[in-house]
Each structure stands twice: as structure tokens, then as C-alpha cells.
């Protein structure tokens, strides 16, 4: 039957897309490890990668001590932001929602700033990864609470996005004031970090990032059924057995944690959360979270790795902020979405 075929067709499509994305991720990761001031061929990368660090071998040192850390960070960072974006888009029922536009990244940034700059003032170590993550988490949750409070009053999502932008500016101003008042070495790093960059990642950071991401990727995937039902809106979700209040809380918690953990170590990286889910939807022609979540994770990872690669190679030996690269890709996409909205009356 024709319709049976359509469903199967979608299944096949999803499998193909996921496999291609996985392959793309592997290729881009290997290339990203290889490309840099010293070029290492892909075959050599693979060879070195699966051996323990050999301190007598330059390639091994470059791969293990310099590049791998950064590639893994950008991989998890991209995936986490993409998933956070997808979750927020489902929550707000709007494809333009994402942690950056809603100001959640900025909130996290402000609080990480407070934690790092303030913590140093009070004699705390700024190196503690969990400490930074905690700062980011508090920031993103505070921001989320403010946005949701506004959402109670403002029903138009577009207005809500403007609110997010305003809050974002406010946070930037606060960070600016803070940096002006702070007088220590942390400020230089903090400024670079404030533009969004994976360059300051340490293995310590990456471990926290990977653990938190791993856990929350799985947890988010387990919500697939409820997320699918939430597509029809909260009222319908309730009538089909979803505990809407709990689900909303979990979406906020998960997207907040994912945004926080990336922002804590890499600063606010813009537009990944908006563009990746949208491209995934176009690729899969589906809204089904069961395939959309893995697709977003894979594509987000590819996106993160490639953008970070561009950030450190385009102006080599100088370095661009990855946030700037993702913006260059993301902004045209948002504009495209807005234009399409006017055309079809959707969103």
C-alpha cells in the first residue's frame, strides 16, 4: 500500500540520514585533528589516535595533548547546543527559539563571569571545572525563569525573542562593567571566552562536558514520546497522558544544563541551537524526536567541529572566535526563516 510505503520511506530516510551524518562526523573529526599549523594526514591521525600517548613522538603529542581535547570539546559543545535548541523549540513551539536568542547563554555567561572574576577576588580557584559549570547552570536557570515569567504575560513568541535579546544586552552590559572593574589576568581570557571559543578548553573541562552531555543526551532521548505529543501543544499533550508540568520542567532543566555546560567552558556560541535542528528537520522531513534528537546531536557535533576548525585555520596563525563563525552561518538562516514565515504565514 502506498501509505505503508510512505512510513517505511521515512524510516529508510532517517536511517540513511543518520548514517551519513555519523560518517560525516567521523571524517570531519579526523580531519580537524589533522589540520593545523602542523598537518597530520588522516591515516596517521587514526594510527596515533588509538595508541597511548607517546611522548617521544611529535604527532602523538600534537594529537593527544593539543588537538584531540579541542575537537572533542567542539564535538560535544555543538551537539549539546543543538539539542538544547531543539528542546527549546519544542517548548516554545517555535523554530526560532534557541539558547542564544532567548538570552540563556548570556545569562550563563554573566554568572560564570561572576563566579570566575568574583571567585578570584574571594580567593577561590577559577580552574575548578565543576565550579564554572555550577555558575553557568545558575545563570541559565535564572535566565530561563525570567523568560518564562515574561512568557506568562507575553503570548507572542516574537515579542518573547525581543525580550530575550534585551536581557542578553543587559547581561553583556553587566559583564562589561564587571570586566572594567576587575583588574587581573583572568580578564583577558574572560574576554576571549566571552566571544565564544573552544581554545581555552582543558582536559579537565572536557571531562565535565562529556559526562554531563552524555547523561543529558540519553535522558533527553528518553523523553521522545512525550516530546512528540508536546508538538500538538500542552493541552493535547495532557489529554494523551503526558504530565505536561513535569515535561516542561524537564525540558527547561535539560536545555538549561546543556547550555550551561557549554557556555561555562566555551562561552556563548551563537545560533547552533537554532540552525542545526532546522536543518535536521529539512533533512529528515520529520518532527519525530526519536530520529530528530540523534540527527541533531550528530549534525550539531559536525557543525561544532567544522566551525571550530574554521575558527582556528581561516586566520591562522591568528584565531577567530567560534561564536563569530557560527553567527555567520546562523544569521542568514534565521533571516531565511523569518522571510519564509511572512510568505506562508507560519510561525
Amino acid at each position, binding site marked *: 500500500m502506498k501509505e505503508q510505503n*510512505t512510513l517505511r520511506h521515512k524510516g529508510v530516510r532517517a536511517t540513511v540520514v543518520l548514517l551519513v551524518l555519523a560518517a560525516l562526523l567521523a571524517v570531519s573529526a579526523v580531519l580537524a585533528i589533522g589540520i593545523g599549523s602542523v598537518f597530520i594526514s588522516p591515516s596517521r591521525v587514526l594510527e596515533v589516535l588509538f595508541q597511548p600517548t607517546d611522548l617521544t613522538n611529535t604527532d602523538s603529542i600534537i594529537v593527544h595533548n593539543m588537538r584531540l581535547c579541542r575537537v572533542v570539546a567542539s564535538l560535544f559543545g555543538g551537539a549539546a547546543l543543538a539539542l538544547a535548541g531543539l528542546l527549546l523549540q519544542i517548548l516554545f513551539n517555535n523554530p526560532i527559539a534557541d539558547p542564544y536568542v532567548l538570552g540563556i547563554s548570556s545569562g550563563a555567561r554573566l554568572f560564570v563571569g561572576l563566579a570566575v572574576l568574583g571567585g578570584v577576588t574571594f580567593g577561590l580557584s577559577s580552574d575548578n571545572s565543576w565550579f564554572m559549570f555550577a555558575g553557568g547552570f545558575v545563570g541559565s536557570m535564572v535566565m530561563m525563569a525570567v523568560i518564562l515569567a515574561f512568557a506568562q504575560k507575553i503570548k507572542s513568541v516574537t515579542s518573547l525573542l525581543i525580550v530575550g535579546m534585551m536581557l542578553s544586552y543587559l547581561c553583556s552590559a553587566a559583564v562589561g562593567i564587571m570586566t572594567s572593574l576587575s583588574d587581573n589576568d583572568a580578564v583577558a581570557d574572560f574576554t576571549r571566552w566571552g566571544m565564544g571559543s573552544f581554545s581555552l578548553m582543558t582536559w579537565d573541562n572536557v571531562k565535565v562536558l562529556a559526562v554531563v552531555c552524555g547523561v543529558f543526551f540519553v535522558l533527553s532521548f528518553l523523553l*521522545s514520546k512525550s516530546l512528540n505529543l508536546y508538538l500538538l501543544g500542552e493541552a493535547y499533550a*495532557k*489529554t*494523551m*497522558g503526558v504530565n505536561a508540568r513535569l515535561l516542561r520542567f524537564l525540558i527547561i532543566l535539560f536545555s538549561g544544563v546543556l547550555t550551561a555546560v557549554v557556555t561555562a567552558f566555551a562561552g556563548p556560541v551563537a545560533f547552533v541551537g537554532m540552525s542545526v535542528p532546522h536543518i535536521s528537520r529539512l533533512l529528515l522531513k*520529520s518532527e519525530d524526536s526519536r530520529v530528530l534528537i540523534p540527527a541533531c546531536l550528530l549534525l550539531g557535533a559536525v557543525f561544532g567541529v567544522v566551525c571550530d576548525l574554521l575558527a582556528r585555520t581561516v586566520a591562522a596563525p591568528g584565531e577567530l572566535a567560534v561564536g563569530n563563525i557560527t553567527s555567520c552561518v546562523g544569521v542568514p538562516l534565521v533571516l531565511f526563516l523569518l522571510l519564509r514565515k511572512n510568505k506562508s504565514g507560519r*510561525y
Partner: protein
Amino acid sequence: MAEEKVIQLDHLSVGYGGKVIVDNIQADFLKGKMICILGSNGAGKTTMLKTISRIIPKVSGEVRLNGRELERVRSADLAREMAVVLTQKIDIGNLTGREVAAMGRYPHTGFFCKLSDRDLEVVDRCMELCSAAYLKDMYFYEMSDGEKQKVMLVRGLAQDADILMLDEPTNHLDIKHKLDVLHILRRLCVREGKTIICTLHEPDLAVKCCDWLVLVKDDRVLVSGATEQVLESGALEELYGFSARQFNPDLGLVQYLSVPDKDVYIVGSDASTPKLLRNLNKFYLGFGMGVLHDNDVVYPIARAMNAPVEAVPAYTPVTEAAAERAYRTARDYRYIVISDCPVCSLNERNRALAQRLEAEGKPVLRLAGETMAEELEALCREKMECGQ
């Protein structure tokens, strides 16, 4: 057989954020019945429906579902016992009609909502039932509002619950699809014993399809009862502020009132008379009628339009007195229309009446099956110019 109460509302007050919209509702809904909540816009029909389906919390009082307190029913169980179709607009992109409809099966599926062949069968059957099969592969954003509404209805049916709650299921639909949807619901109710609770804006359709009516007005339930009882109580007229004859409960007919001017007097009736009456109404011409038999279909229509009608009981000859009264009334009218009906012993006095009026020099029209006359349209224009 004792009638089973599926839903009991006991001193229930519903509203938003503690603000009561409908107060102190007392009603029981029986299994296998089709129940309709009627009320003007903003009366709180939807709020009631949402409260009974636990989408919003009640303000006070109690809702019982099959004897259990509604709050104590687990969400997953509730989803299998009650399906809800709302009117709110849904905006989802990349889902086809079939995928949206298949969501109705989710409460019956496992953790990862894998649809079995049986689930897909149910979905397809429901699509056929709602004549929505052509929407299967269409993307949701490509559909018209009516088609979306249809798909959401299919989704509700596919949920296969014993109770189906629908908020204005006929919204966005044209008259044919309105009738179709109500017919489908009626059939589910009669054949499968499902309890259907819906809100409607069309009292005429509600009367034709529903067993039970709940009328809501001014923060309270005016009446909750079997359709016939409600009709007899006259509460329906009160609900919409209809004057006494604007709504005819026997025919389930809603009519505009005729203007009170004495423009056309119609003697007798024929097959085209109902259309003539409607046209007179459209051209703002007042009319009177006589002498009819009270089983004539024209009789309740003319009465619903609030026109003066002279009538005698069915299957009895037109009396001298009735003909005389009709004559006195008819004399004041501008035009006389004589219907094209066969004459027999029961209505021969109508012919005499017509001849008498004609002899007096009244302008007489014999429409012979036509439903409007140039003279009458001219009369309408004349009235308009005089600013009447």
C-alpha cells in the same frame, strides 16, 4: 437496565485562575449518549469541557469519571478512557496527516511509541471513516483549517477511548462536512456505545443529533436534560434570546423574523410557498397567510417567522369564520398572492376568499410555481426609497 453514569458533575465550578466562569454545575452524563453543551460565545462551554477533561484544574466541586474522582485517575489511564479534540490552532511543519492522526495511538503504545500493525489499521480505518484518507500523505502545513480540524478529529477517534470530548467539532467546516462529522459522531455513539460530549454553535444541528443538551448562560447551567425536555422547557429560546417563534423546536428550524409590514397576503399554499416566504424575508416584505391546515409544512415556517397565520386543524374543512377572519386581515395588505393548489372540499373556501379579494380590486398575483415576482421586488425598492 440502569443507565450508567459515565461522568458526574457535582457542584462543579469552572474557570481560569480562580475566576469562576460557570458556577455550581450539577449534571450527569450517561454512557452511550451524545451530549451537547450549548451557549453563546464566551459562555464557558470550552472551559467546562477543558475542566472535565482535566486540561485545566477545576475551581471547586467535583468531577467523577466512572465513579472515581477525576483527579485521582492516572494520566495514562485517562488518555485511554477519554479522547479530546480541541479547536486551538496547531502549527507543526513536517508531519503528515497520517502521522498526526497516528499520535492518537500513543497512549496505547510503549515507551518509544512504536506503532503496531493493528495501530496503523485503526488509524487508517478512522481516516476512512472521516473521509480523510486523501489527507494521509499531505503535510499538516499544506492543509486548510477545515482539513486540519478533520485530522485532529481522526486523531481523537484513533485514541479509541470510550468518552470522546469535542470542542466545536464543526468549527471551520462547511455545512456538508458539519453534517458528516456529526453523523460520524452519532454513529459512534449508537453503534459502538461511545459517550460523546461536544460543544456546538448550531442549536438546530444539536437538536437533530444529540440526546442530551446542557445549556449554559450567565455563569450558570440553565438546564441539563434530554433534548425533548429541554425543547419543551423553552430554555433554548431563552439561551439565545430568541423571541418565541424564531426557533421551531419540532423542525429544529431557525428563522429570521418577518417584518411586520402588511405587504403580501398569501392565500393557501403550494410546493413553492416555503421558497416564496424566504424570498419575501430577503426583500424585507411582510406577509400574512390564510387559511392553512395546521399540518402544512408552511405553517410552522410562517409561525417561526412570526407572521400572522390563519389556520384550521388538519383534515377539517376551512370554516366560514376562519375564512372571514382571513378576509378581514387580507384587506389591509398591498398584494394578494394566490397559491397554485388543487381545490377540494377541505379548502374550497380559500378559492372563494381569493375571488372575493380579487373582486374588490386588490392586485392579485398568481405565481404558478415562481418563487418571486417583479411587482414584489419593485415594492421592496419602493419601500427602501421611502426610507422604511
